[in-house]
């Protein structure tokens, strides 16, 4: 009885198994494709079922075109919009760099401004008129020439339509008038001098396409593909959170990219992306954790690129939140307004330990505001000025300023209030928590208490000024104007209930005066000197305390990419460059094929089909059961 029963119940299972095996077996050739490509030439796919299946349809040309050197990058951040007027996220702006030309670009060697759509530029003696010469050899991918009128229209649209100013409005806020007197001359008149005129990171769009857009707040530029552009790549296909496909622009004025297709494939989980890199399904993975980087070090054909990053990590000290109208708000600890307390706290921070233990070596310790990667502007405090790690000096500084330890070993101020601080930390950032632990230990020895408040949403308490200290960090652009502007008095919120663009409510007249001078200084070296003075002033006030510059850790397959340009060229990163250098320059290795994981479109038909396949299997199983039942009934 038992045997019969189990024998019988095993039958539907058997049917399921057979069907599943068939399903997988049928699929095997295509899953082997990646391996086939690894040691064969690029024509292997022509023999494959999928192409053969579509041999009679017009799609065959697409399939054939797809053959060749396909570079697949693993990305995780969703595209917010493909419209240059709306896009703010790094993935989207990186795509725009590849698809559209900007007026100027940055040299991969050292980040200085070099020609883009504009070949030359000059400013008038009163510094208020900028004239750009637009190149004659840039054409849109639909064949029309790219002209000064396209650039003028792009800027004018941002100036007149608030919706079009969503992403990059800060660049044009100071523009008075933009004209194109002839197809190769662009003239921008300013309200007041603006040093960032050679760093306008605004994609120039084709007027003849975009003037038909009715509502810039909802137009995402993702319906009509390929997207008409004039950058080194042409965006040919996009499926939300699945892939973005880009083809080389054969007519690109600087020369076409060397690969045949660039695919951004979505991996929402970092470890899965690393697994795909190991397997060779993707050629490149950015944003590695120290553990992932360590595990990839020994992987064959994989190079880990531990590049100097463009971010700084700082501890912001609440300087007493205030609004432009003079009203104060928030509940920052008053003792932090005493310079001696700030000095003592940061004398007791051992940056080298943080880099070694928290970042496991994937960061550089530092104190200047601009990361050393931007060599023109990077600054380091002079020895006499520096708050180097010295816990004993920290203790003496507090003693001298009158913050004595009480019986319990706690330091108290003159008002009797203990030095107990809070620090706002991002709950999702493991670095913040780890650094918080070290700070508790170091400052605890000093007699200063610290509560680490890790929140999912630190924006709310931050904007209300309800913090003593906070973990702060910004990604710095080649032009430092923006990261400097967020510490000016003008960036404060108009009233306590408004939101300003200020980072940390800093308002310092000396700093503001220096900031205004650099903003109007058109001589690069004179401006760089002013930017360094600004950083020195920011450092001395002690409200922004840079700890380290985390590295950009990424990895790529050396059997897919033979050579690639990093930025800065000597030691730099690949993902999120200021420019299109990495993927434009990528030289494919012999083994790079059309790839397996490029993630083609999934039609509703395919989804229905797959569901159908499963239903079929289930039906087969059910049929087996019913058949067995009826025969069993017959036997009874």
């Amino acid at each position, binding site marked *: 009885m038992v045997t019969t029963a189990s024998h019988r119940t095993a039958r539907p299972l058997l049917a399921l198994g057979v069907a599943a095996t068939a399903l997988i077996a049928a699929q095997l050739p295509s899953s082997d494709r990646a391996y086939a490509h690894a040691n064969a030439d690029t024509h292997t796919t022509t023999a494959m079922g999928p192409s053969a299946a579509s041999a009679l349809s017009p799609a065959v040309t697409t399939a054939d075109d797809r053959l060749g050197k396909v570079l697949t990058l693993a990305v995780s951040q969703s595209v917010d919009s493909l419209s240059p007027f709306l896009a703010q996220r790094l993935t989207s702006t990186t795509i725009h760099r590849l698809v559209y030309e900007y007026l100027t670009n940055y040299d991969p060697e050292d980040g200085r401004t070099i020609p883009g759509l504009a070949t030359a530029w000059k400013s008038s003696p009163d510094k208020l008129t900028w004239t750009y010469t637009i190149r004659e050899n840039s054409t849109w991918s639909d064949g029309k020439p790219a002209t000064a009128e396209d650039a003028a229209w792009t800027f004018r649209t941002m100036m007149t339509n608030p919706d079009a100013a969503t992403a990059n409005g800060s660049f044009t806020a100071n523009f008075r008038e933009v004209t194109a007197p002839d197809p190769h001359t662009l003239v921008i008149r300013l309200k007041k001098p603006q040093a960032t005129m050679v760093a306008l990171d605004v994609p120039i769009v084709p007027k003849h396409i975009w003037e038909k857009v009715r509502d810039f707040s909802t137009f995402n530029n993702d319906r009509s593909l390929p997207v008409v552009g004039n950058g080194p790549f042409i965006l040919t296909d996009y499926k939300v959170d699945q892939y973005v496909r880009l083809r080389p622009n054969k007519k690109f004025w600087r020369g076409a990219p060397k690969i045949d297709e660039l695919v951004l494939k979505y991996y929402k989980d970092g470890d899965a992306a690393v697994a795909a890199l190991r397997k060779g399904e993707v050629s490149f993975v950015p944003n590695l954790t120290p553990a992932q980087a360590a595990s990839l070090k020994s992987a064959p054909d994989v190079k880990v690129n531990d590049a100097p990053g463009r971010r700084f990590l700082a501890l912001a000290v609440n300087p007493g939140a205030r609004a432009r109208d003079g009203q104060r708000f928030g509940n920052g600890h008053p003792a932090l307004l005493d310079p001696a307390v700030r000095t003592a706290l940061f004398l007791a921070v051992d940056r080298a330990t943080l880099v070694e233990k928290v970042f496991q070596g994937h960061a550089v310790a530092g104190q200047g505001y601009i990361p050393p990667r931007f060599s023109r502007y990077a600054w380091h405090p002079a020895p006499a000025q520096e708050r180097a790690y010295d816990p004993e000096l920290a203790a003496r500084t507090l003693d001298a300023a009158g913050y004595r330890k009480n019986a319990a070993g706690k330091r108290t101020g003159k008002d009797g209030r203990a030095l107990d601080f809070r620090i706002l930390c991002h709950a999702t950032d493991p670095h913040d928590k780890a650094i918080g632990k070290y700070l508790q230990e170091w400052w605890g020895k000093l007699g200063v208490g610290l509560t680490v408040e890790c929140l999912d949403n630190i924006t709310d308490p931050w904007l209300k000024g309800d913090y003593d200290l906070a973990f702060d960090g910004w990604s710095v652009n080649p032009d430092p104007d923006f990261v400097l502007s967020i510490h000016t008095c003008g960036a404060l919120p108009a009233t306590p209930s408004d*939101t300003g663009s200020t980072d940390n409510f800093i308002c310092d007249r000396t700093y503001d005066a220096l900031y205004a001078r650099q903003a109007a200084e058109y001589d690069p070296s004179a401006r760089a000197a002013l930017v360094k003075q600004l950083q020195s002033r920011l450092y001395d006030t002690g409200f922004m305390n840079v700890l380290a510059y985390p590295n950009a850790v990424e990895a790529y397959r050396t059997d897919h990419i033979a050579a690639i340009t990093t930025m800065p060229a000597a030691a730099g990163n690949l993902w999120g460059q200021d420019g299109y250098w990495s993927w434009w320059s990528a030289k494919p290795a012999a083994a790079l094929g059309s790839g397996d994981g490029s993630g083609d479109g999934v039609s509703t038909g395919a989804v229905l089909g797959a569901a159908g396949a499963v239903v079929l299997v289930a039906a087969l199983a059910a049929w087996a059961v019913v058949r067995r039942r009826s025969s069993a009934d017959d036997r009874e």
Partner: protein
Amino acid sequence: MTTTNPSVARAHEDGRRGGGRRGGRRPGDRSSSVPPYPRAPAYLTYLAGKLSGAVVSLLAVLVTGFFLFRIVPGDPVAAMTRGMPTSAEQLATLRRQFGLDLPVWRQFTDYCGRALTGDLGTSYQFRQPVGELIAQRLPATLLLTGVAVVLYSALGLWLGTRSAWRHGGLGDRLNTGLALTLWSVPSFWLGLLLIIVFSVGVGPVPGLFPTGGMSSGTTTGPAQVLDVAHHMVLPVLTLVAVGYAQTLLVTRASLLDEMGGDYLVTARAKGLRDDLVRRRHAVPNALLPTVTMVFINLGHVAAGSILVETVFSWPGLGGLFYQALSVPDLPLVQGLFMVFAGAMIVMNLLADLAYPLLDPRVGR
């Protein structure tokens, strides 16, 4: 065929009684206080009750969704622009675009008005109608989670029945032990493990399956169907492994309750094979709790599985919900909340409607 299923037998009896004079006289019968009526209207009354309940629930969800996510701390505009060069004018523009400059009561009435016409608003971060965003991701989620729920329900039902029938035996202990072990495994961890072993390949195990996504590239037509199925294997396996214990345990427990029943002794006394006693007599009576559970799980299908979708980069609703919450992208979270809750309500409704068909004692 010489035997009838006891529940089927009761159904026939009920059918007669419902149409006859003795209808509704049985003690404990819910319809005993109302005058006798034919069977069909009884079902209709039951149906109307359940339907109106579902509609009320949906309206409650509509209202809750609006206020619930406004309690969640976080200013969407501040969160979206943090770390980006933004002027005060740009912030004001965003607030105006999102309708956040209006008083809350206006936002609420606008939201209700739109929702009743089927417009769920426009996502803040994707600048796309919420309905469209959901429609883009829904098929992927339904496919993945739907297949997984069907498979693990079937597997759990089958193994649960076997376990209960021979409870205490080695097979039972192995079955429940394994199921409980897998049930306690974090799904993202199991998923990663499967990727490492079966996608990348470890030692002699070849990397048979893709590491993520829903389709692998240059396929069209029937090949693409197989391709999607190929991509589904590991995520479905993960969901089934982690999920089947639930059905197994419920089935096992409810079948154990039935196993002392006199009707089973009768059935055996009639000389029925053990197999038939189980399948025709015991299981149908033990099925209700399992059916409830299956429908609840089907209700969860729309919500997908955030963890498994993330690990396998499956472009479904689970991942979308996570992205929506982290802003918070209010129209999108509200829309998804409506869809998730709506699916739950509809599935519960279907379960309620199916009960009388499975067990005629219900709903009269």
